[in-house]
């Protein structure tokens, strides 16, 4: 069993992202960064100082930014296109569809401060629709690193083998996951095992899922916890195994429930043979959030350890 230290230090993954990108860029002149007046919020100040020619700031113009990224990719560069996630995905959705996914230009779209990270700035600045929107695009990988190690590994993997990808780079601080915190294309990581319920969590929710597992353990309920760090291509095998080996599934994501992780899990479980069609509880966002801090809004949406544990028990009760 993995003990979770609730007082563990927490980190802003943007820092690990920028450090790794800079280290790689020093050795690989193909790596460029593209941004939208977001040099500061994407943590690219140092990158600009060290590689002034390779930081392309197109100004506040996200559609242009993604198109420029596709053009750079077609010239053999490895563009990391960095902008606040809501504007990167919402504003440039057609560029992501036509210029990146459909054209198969290997652009790495880096959605900064995703989910509810912008708290009181409100729904225009929350990026909770991104998973639904982008999961609908064939040929686009979706990566949700859950801690610093996974963030660094994602940057390394995508720089080494660039492909059309959207990755979330979290601002809301999270603890490091138990080691080894690795990453594999199209795979979830099992970060804890148990027999009663499987909690499948993504990004910021993984550490909360581990806390929920502790709450449940104290009540005699054992949990498997999966880190859904690579959402597309999807890890069908992990979900099938969870359905076969545990009695219920709970999903947790800092995203709207209409088409993200939970929807992907539920649509797979629905196709399983009768005996394996376990109950699924889907936790996430349902509406435009009221004014509140990130933590307040996450708790309101049931995205904290206590609500997660309750949802797990509800799912098991339906088994």
């Amino acid at each position, binding site marked *: 069993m993995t003990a979770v230290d609730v007082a563990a230090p927490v980190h802003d993954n943007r820092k690990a992202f920028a450090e790794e990108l800079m280290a790689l860029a020093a050795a690989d002149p193909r790596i460029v960064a593209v941004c939208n*007046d977001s*040099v500061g919020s994407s943590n690219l100040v140092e990158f600009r100082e060290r590689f002034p020619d390779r930081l392309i*700031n197109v100004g*506040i*113009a996200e559609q242009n930014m993604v198109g420029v990224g596709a053009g750079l990719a077609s010239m053999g560069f490895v563009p990391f296109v960095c902008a606040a996630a809501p504007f990167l995905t919402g504003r440039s959705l057609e560029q992501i569809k036509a210029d990146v996914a459909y054209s198969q230009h290997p652009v790495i779209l880096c959605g900064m401060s995703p989910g509810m990270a912008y708290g*009181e700035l409100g729904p*225009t600045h929350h990026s909770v629709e991104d998973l639904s929107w982008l999961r609908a695009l064939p040929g686009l990988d979706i990566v949700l690193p859950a801690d610093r190690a996974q963030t660094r590994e994602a940057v390394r993997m995508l720089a080494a083998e660039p492909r059309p990808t959207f990755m979330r780079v979290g601002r809301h601080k999270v603890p490091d996951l138990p080691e080894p915190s690795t990453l594999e294309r199209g795979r979830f990581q099992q970060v804890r095992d148990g027999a009663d319920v499987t909690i499948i969590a993504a990004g910021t929710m993984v550490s909360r899922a581990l806390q929920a597992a502790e709450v449940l353990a104290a009540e005699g309920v054992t949990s498997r916890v999966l880190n859904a760090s690579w959402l597309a291509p999807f890890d069908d095998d992990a979900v099938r195994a969870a359905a076969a080996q545990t009695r219920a599934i709970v999903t947790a994501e800092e995203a709207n429930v209409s088409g993200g992780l939970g929807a992907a899990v539920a649509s797979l479980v629905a196709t399983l043979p009768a005996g394996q069609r376990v109950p699924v509880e889907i936790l996430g966002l349902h509406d435009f959030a009221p*004014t509140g801090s990130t933590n*307040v809004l996450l708790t309101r949406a049931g995205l904290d350890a206590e609500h997660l544990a309750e949802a797990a028990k509800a799912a098991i009760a339906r088994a």
Partner: protein
Amino acid sequence: MLTTDLEQVLIWRAERDRIAAAEPAEKATLLAGRAQAIRRRVVQMIMAAGQGHVGGDMSVTDILTTLFYETLRIDPADLPENRDRFILSKGHCAAALYATLASCGYFSPKELGTFMAEGSALNGHPNRVKVPGVETNTGPLGHGLPVAVGQAVGAHLAGSPARMFVVAGDGELQEGSNWEALMAAAHYGLENLTLVVDRNRLQQGARTEDTNGLDPLDARLAAFGCEVRSVDGHDHLALAEAYAPPVTGGPVAVIANTIKGKGISFMEDRVEWHHKVPTSEQAEQALLELA
């Protein structure tokens, strides 16, 4: 949804009437006094919330004050379909808009104390579903002008005399949607549409001209079919004049040349005050300077 504060509406009406009747020198003094009061309120709101966009709030205040106390044909207690419409497209400066709307009585000035607090209607970006006086939700840059084009076309269709005013940031003009909207505005001959550009020459991370330059902005706006008026964006009388209907029959673009952080010496024209929050000592100093 917040509700109209009728008592405050009466105060605003009296002040507005006084401004309307005043000689130019007195009018300028009255508008300047009102603007400084709004600036002070904004500083207090940002201090209470612990966040906000103070630089752009200070640069846009005179633009807003002149609109709401001199130009717009509006009344918070009476909202007919043919009223003038105002959209703050640079929605990150919600605090300046809220303080202005509250001073007009769209809602109680007491509400300003809840800016960005849990459950408040006064979110970091304006929401028309919750805040009277907000005509459309903004926050992502480059949304106001297309909506105003629709309003202006709608006014033509309805035979309404309403005029549409949009305030956009200068950095915001890097969004292509603005230029698509301007093309349509000229094409449809929208003399009832006025774009006001808060030309403070700074955006979030740097100067506009060092990021993705806009100059020659006047020539560019003219080339897109606007009647361009370039004024001191802190001169209320010049702004009021620039807000007059066009003589050419197309859309008007007012380039309001402003200073980001205007009125607070240590913030003026400094990029870091885009969304930095003052220390309590700095806030004290700011309130003194704005007195």
